[in-house]
């Protein structure tokens, strides 16, 4: 149960088997195919609308014809994988399969690592599937895979992993599937609220000196929001998208690095929580 100092062959094997089992579970899960369908339909809708718009107006300016489809994939697939990750560990704990795994040569690093890698590979697999579809579309219409599209695809990987790692962390911290879901949704809502609350409060009559509490609330939220800019996956996605738009390589690398670091920190946090809290339900 304790941390082994060296990452030996046994741990890699255990991590790979945990990852393999998770991927197998996703492969047989109807949810996966539903997500593929939804993302595919959304992408098709965007591309068709775009083609229609160009046919009607004669021209369109886009940073990438496939950016919106990629965002739709990012949203649908990311949400699905996040929900899968958030229920994954608490469900195993609830069912008792987690305990059975830990009877053998499995430790928290192998288990959490294997889980995260499985979700990463699942995302890459789904992304590859979508890209094949887009390539078909690009080939027949003339739409291009512009550099920003590849940059957005590259950005989407750490961002999705960031959300998945957050889900894994929540799943490790809680003991029941329901609690995991509730906490995760609460955290997502909180991050979204932090993201957009200053804009919403902007609509409130804060300039009026009769409303100092609202003014104060907005200042506080702005400050918190600024701090969360470097933690929230939503804020990082916006920042990264802005970096892509501005072709700001430094900001792009910085954003993806921060997102990747967040994944590592959340993974380490998950390992610590599991090590501390044990594997029993």
């Amino acid at each position: 149960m304790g941390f082994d100092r060296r990452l030996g062959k046994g741990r890699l094997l255990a991590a790979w088997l945990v990852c393999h089992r998770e991927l197998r579970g996703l492969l047989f899960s109807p949810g996966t195919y539903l997500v593929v369908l939804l993302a595919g339909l959304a992408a098709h809708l965007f591309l068709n609308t775009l083609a229609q718009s160009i046919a009607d107006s004669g021209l369109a300016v886009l940073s990438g014809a496939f950016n919106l489809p990629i965002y739709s994939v990012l949203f649908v697939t990311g949400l699905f994988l996040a929900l899968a990750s958030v229920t994954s560990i608490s469900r195993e704990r609830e069912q008792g399969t987690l305990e059975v795994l830990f009877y053998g040569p499995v430790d928290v690093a192998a288990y959490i690592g294997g889980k995260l890698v499985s979700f990463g590979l699942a995302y890459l697999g789904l992304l590859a599937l979508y890209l094949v579809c887009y390539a078909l579309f690009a080939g027949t219409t003339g739409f291009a895979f512009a550099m920003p599209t590849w940059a957005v695809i590259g950005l989407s990987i750490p961002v999705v992993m960031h959300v998945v790692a957050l889900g894994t962390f929540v799943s490790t911290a809680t003991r029941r599937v329901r609690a995991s879901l509730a906490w995760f949704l609460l955290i997502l809502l909180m991050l979204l609220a932090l993201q957009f609350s200053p804009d919403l409060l902007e609509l409130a009559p804060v300039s009026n000196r009769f409303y100092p509490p609202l003014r104060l609330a907005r200042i506080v939220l702005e400050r918190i929001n600024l701090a969360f800019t470097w933690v929230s996956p939503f804020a990082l996605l916006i920042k990264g998208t802005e970096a892509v738009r501005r072709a700001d390589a430094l900001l792009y690398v910085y954003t993806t690095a921060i997102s990747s670091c967040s994944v590592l920190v959340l993974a380490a946090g998950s390992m610590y929580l599991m090590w501390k809290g044990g594997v029993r339900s």
Partner: protein
Amino acid sequence: MADAIRTDSLSKSFVDFEAVIDVSLRVETNEIYGFLGPNGAGKTTTIMLLLGLERPTRGVAYLLDSPSHAREFAVRRRLGVLGERQVFFDDMTAREYLRFFGRLYSVGRIEQRIDVLLERVNLTHAADARARDFSRGMQQKLGLVRALLHDPELLILDEPVSALDPRGVVEVRELLHSELGRGKTVFISSHVLTEVEQLADRIGIMNKGRLMVEDTLDNIRQALQPETRIQIELAEPDRFPAAALLDLDFVSRTELRDGRLSVHLKGSASPEARAGVSRVVSQHGGVIVDMHAEQMTLEQAFVTITDEDVERLAA
């Protein structure tokens, strides 16, 4: 010979109660150890502490000389564990489930090994059925196969026969005996006392978080019941001088009532004691028609030990 399991003052406290208190147990290599106790006695927590799945509040547990807090993967591969509850991964067949663990434990020739073990517990026909669709008994046997798959040195079994039918119990018993014959050590926690009585070389009984007693069953009996009684039915009881038996050191008194001779022994009715009584009866012309010792069963011992009044035994 090194101990397969050893704990030193192992304790585990939760927020509102102490689940395990100063447990120091020892399981020798190549023996079957029965671990008994009523519900809530702390058996499962002790097993979790042994496996390192719970961290002790105090003390330390060694399995195969490896402390629970720093157990190497290599040591874990030498353990076979059957949990109290059998759980299976979604949608996996029995073979896929065993294959997964076979790979995890780096078992060579997995398929062959799976076939052999499934055959031994009579589950070959269900190898490609979904494990979660199995009956409870089948699931328990499948769990046992998983625990044995990598040919572990030490088996820790929590209620291995609780859901089995008599035939299944026999299959498992034979399996465990054969494992013992191959030099393995078996640690069984169970409620099925008759099974433990038949299997175990030594027994440990837990109650209220404490290890009340740990010894062979005979020694436990002796400790609980200082005097045992041998009932003898003689061909001509009136002609036999019962007082002659008092010459034996270990006989405390005799009684002849309703044609049956009761011989009270100081200690257990060991085979040696029984042979001595038999010899004296023969020397005095007595003809023994029937003779049996009335000694404490494991169940009686268990009930006695887990009774609050005999906590003194723990001392």
